[in-house]
């Protein structure tokens, strides 16, 4: 009976995936920066995950789901807010010599510095380019390890590390500068 098999598949899917719905929503919320859009994206991603549930192998369900949510986020952003998905300037280690990476890190800092309207850290995180924002969210808020972050974002561990470093440097400069400003 097809519908019995389908019901079994659905209940297995729900037990594998639904425990990670909060994490899925949080990632989508940070990437879309909006409640309603995050809900739309998660809804779409979970349905997609269900359709491709056959590709899930026992293992890390959270990374598997977050990978799908992340991909759904980016394609949603490309459709609806293409300005939000400007490619990140070269990652350290992917270019010969350190100059490009240094410039890239500098440009993120400049970006945050230019947002003098943002005093709080959460606002500064939201202002980070998406590829840097997601590693901060996955590391600091979802508390994933480097291996898992690489798995979710589909980049090498070395790139994860350099992005984390860039994101933190930019956040620190902007945050510490403003903290001092507030104290005076």
């Amino acid at each position: 009976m097809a519908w019995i098999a389908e019901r079994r598949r659905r209940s297995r899917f729900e037990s594998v995936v639904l425990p990670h719905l909060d994490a899925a929503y949080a990632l989508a919320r940070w990437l879309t920066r909006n409640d309603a859009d995050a809900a739309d994206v998660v809804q779409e991603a979970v349905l997609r995950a269900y359709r491709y549930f056959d590709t899930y192998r026992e293992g890390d369900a959270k990374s598997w789901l977050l990978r799908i949510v992340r991909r759904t986020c980016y394609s949603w952003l490309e459709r609806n807010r293409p300005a939000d998905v400007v490619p990140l300037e070269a990652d350290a280690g992917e270019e010969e010599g350190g100059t490009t990476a240094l410039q890239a890190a500098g440009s993120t800092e400049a970006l945050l510095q230019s947002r003098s309207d943002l005093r709080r850290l959460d606002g500064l995180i939201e202002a980070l380019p998406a590829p840097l924002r997601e590693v901060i969210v996955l590391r600091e808020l979802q508390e994933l390890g480097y291996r898992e972050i690489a798995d979710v974002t589909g980049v090498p561990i070395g790139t994860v590390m350099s992005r984390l470093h860039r994101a933190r440097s930019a956040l620190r400069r902007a945050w510490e500068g403003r903290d001092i400003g507030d104290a005076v």
Partner: protein
Amino acid sequence: MQCDEVRPRLDAYIDGELAEDECAPLLAHLADCPECGPEAAALTRLRDGIRHAAPIYRAPEALRSHIRATLRAEAAASAGASRAAPSWLAYAASILVAVAVGSGGTLLVTGERQGDAIASELIDSHLRSLLGSHLTDVVSSDQHTVKPWFAGRSELSPPAVDLAGEGFPLVGGRLDVMAGKPVPALVYRRREHLINLFVLPASRGDLGATLSRHGYSLRHWNEGDLGFWAASDAAPSELAEFERVFRAATSG
């Protein structure tokens, strides 16, 4: 370990990703070095600051139930697509229609055994909706919210009308699955009772009927292409009244 070895490892150190044999020399350096020590402390402060300042986002309950409903509908659709076996509900319904049309009688009398199968399933759904956390997928007394919610989720578009003025306020809508098919349900309240109004394709012939089971009543009528099945623990006379005001509000 020197500064130029320590700096590239600081992120990994505070992330707990540093190789075990590198931790002790790195810590020794941090304790002594007037620059690397404060640098590590600043990174830790930043991490604590982020965890403190960042809002914690959790999936809203509405999203959760919405996803469950979508999955049920999706599962139903894929099960239906395979057509491995005719669903028993369709089978029962076809017998029911044949009996009713053939005899011209009421569901209660002539279709009792076959009607039982549907009645059981609908009343089970009604009970599940009362007992579980899944009463409504969309909570609203506004027909302009409830009606579009069903669009795209079900082939049937139930006429959601609020009947608060007549004593039956609309609570919301829900998608159930019966025999592998998504079945829209509108939820109404009658004082302390809830009424689930299930919407199925119309059965042919006039099947005006009331069934009762374990203190629950089921009332059926057709309107256009749609067959309505109202399930409730309200008295059968209340369901008759509900049918009257619902038809009056939707036929106009």
